[in-house]
């Protein structure tokens, strides 16, 4: 039932000792990078002066902006010829955060993904269909490598093409799938159209849900429709990708693999640690990454640590389903989008006015983005064709940047709500 029993069930005291020795190493490794060398110098931090886990708080927090500002190589702690892999958190070129891995890094990452999968009951006899986008996004390759490590037969199906997904499931007896929750729901209708009953006509037994915030209710729907167990997972490319935290068979919080990461929950305002079991922002430190160690990374994700031990016997802390974010990042179909990206693109387009609004909707289990854009008054010439042209241009420009095709609606200048202070740029209607 354990992938690595010694580590997974390690007594807390011993686990913390392991963390401390790894933390010391990680801080030393990090000091080889341009970013941390400067940061340590500026804050008078001696990498040899980490004597307890609490000493981690001497190190300032690292943010996504830091990663962007030191793009692309400012966080590298090894020479570039040691690197074997690059991933990126979103599709943009200018603002993307990129993460590099050495071969050892990929191996350690693969190990925790394999551990996570094994924890849910996946075994080498399973047939694993990876219905995730392959590419810069970590979800595709991360799970792919993990499943191979477990020894399962991996089908790299990729995203989309519902008919083929269902066909593959039947042809090769898929037992485990990795899928975006909204796509799992969307597939309901494809199953009905194909006249395939997922319970009787497939061998599905497990689904890994990821890359998208989803509710307990969505999980229940998926479990019921497919007659399977669906497991929630947590990860972010800055911390390798999937496999950072994963549910065990008890589906009561996600075990965060503390031999690989140091977990802190802080108050996002005061930046001080919250008291035990209280909600706050998740802060993570890599312990086993050589290529690009990141210390005290602000994930901007809100959660809490569930107090007490888990019935499964694993001693690693559990975090709750992510409650939301402390910044305005949107996650749509696994793609990270910041409203500022959309703003930047829009403001470069002639004819666009001053205000816009992003609306996220869930229709027939699919997430959609609608962007309402005010037209510039003097751009209007009375010609509908000209407006249509503008609308199409906005769609194309946004699509090239955020990799998602939004629906664009042109509205009259001054018609969108103007808020005092911080503008409301996003209305998320996806909540159930």
């Amino acid at each position, binding site marked *: 039932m354990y992938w690595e029993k010694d580590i997974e069930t390690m007594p807390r005291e011993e686990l913390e000792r392991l963390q401390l020795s790894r933390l010391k190493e990680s801080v030393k490794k990090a000091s080889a990078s341009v970013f941390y060398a400067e940061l340590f110098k500026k804050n008078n931090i001696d990498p040899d002066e980490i004597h307890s886990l609490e000493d981690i708080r001497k190190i300032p927090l690292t943010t996504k902006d830091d990663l962007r500002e030191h793009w692309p190589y400012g966080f590298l702690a090894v020479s570039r010829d040691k690197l074997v892999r690059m991933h990126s958190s979103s599709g943009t070129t200018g603002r993307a955060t990129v993460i590099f891995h050495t071969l050892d890094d990929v191996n350690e990452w693969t190990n925790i993904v394999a551990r996570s999968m094994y924890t849910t009951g996946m075994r080498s006899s399973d047939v694993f269909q990876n219905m995730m986008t392959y590419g810069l996004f970590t979800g595709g390759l991360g799970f792919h490598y993990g499943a191979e490590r477990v020894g399962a037969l991996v089908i790299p199906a990729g995203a989309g093409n519902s008919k083929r997904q269902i066909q593959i499931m039947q042809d090769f007896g898929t037992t485990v799938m990795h899928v975006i929750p909204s796509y799992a729901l969307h597939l309901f209708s494809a199953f009905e159209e194909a006249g395939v009953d997922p319970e009787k006509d497939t061998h599905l037994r497990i689904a890994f849900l990821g890359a998208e915030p989803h509710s307990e209710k969505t999980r229940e729907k998926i479990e019921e429709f497919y007659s399977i167990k669906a497991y929630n997972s947590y990860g972010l490319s800055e911390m390798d990708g999937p496999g950072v935290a994963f549910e065990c068979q008890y589906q009561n919080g996600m075990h965060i693999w503390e031999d690989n990461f140091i977990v802190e929950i802080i108050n996002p305002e005061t930046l001080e640690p919250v008291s035990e079991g209280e909600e706050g922002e998740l802060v993570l430190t890599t312990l086993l990454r050589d290529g690009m160690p990141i210390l005290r990374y602000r994930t901007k994700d809100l959660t809490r640590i569930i107090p007490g031990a888990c019935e499964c016997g694993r001693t690693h802390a559990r975090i709750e389903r992510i409650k939301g974010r402390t910044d305005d990042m949107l996650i749509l179909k696994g793609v990270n989008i910041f409203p500022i990206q959309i703003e930047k693109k829009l403001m470069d387009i002639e004819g666009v006015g001053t205000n816009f609004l992003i609306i996220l909707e869930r229709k027939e289990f699919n997430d959609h983005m609608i962007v309402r854009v005010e037209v510039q008054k003097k751009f*209007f*010439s*009375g010609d*509908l064709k000209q*407006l249509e042209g503008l609308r199409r241009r906005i769609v194309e420009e946004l699509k090239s940047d955020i990799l998602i095709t939004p629906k664009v609606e*042109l*509205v*009259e200048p001054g*018609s969108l709500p103007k808020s005092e202070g911080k503008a409301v740029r996003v209305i998320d209607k996806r909540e159930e």
Partner: protein
Amino acid sequence: MVAHQLSVFAENKPGRLAKVTSILRKNKINMRAITISTSDVFGVINLIVDDPKSAFTILEKEGLTVSMKEVIAVVIEDKPGGLDKLVQLLYDTGINVENAYGFVLESHEKAIFVVDVDQIEKTQKVLEDAHFETLDAQALSAIEPFHYMKY
């Protein structure tokens, strides 16, 4: 002679047309013709009014997005073939019509056909040579159409 057409940008939702017409009513502006073209969620209201310049100022002051452009109001005969005569002429001379609409001026006698064309000066010349009568804003305001029909 050229006439002036006002175009108002409007979202395709209840109340937008009502807003335009109520402003015109309050300011005693008379409409000669109105057409609406819509895309999925937005559209354009085209107006021919008796006093386009002050209507433009008023609508803009009320916060609407308005533009004014020159169009040609051609007098045609209100009988079978009346419009065809004009359109054939435009076709023969290579003039493209971007938008057009018409209304009857005097039943079985005269109608007005408003054309928005790509080459306005050439069109004026062509019409003049073919002895078509065109109206400007003043002439349009002096007439009392019977009813309006959309082209």
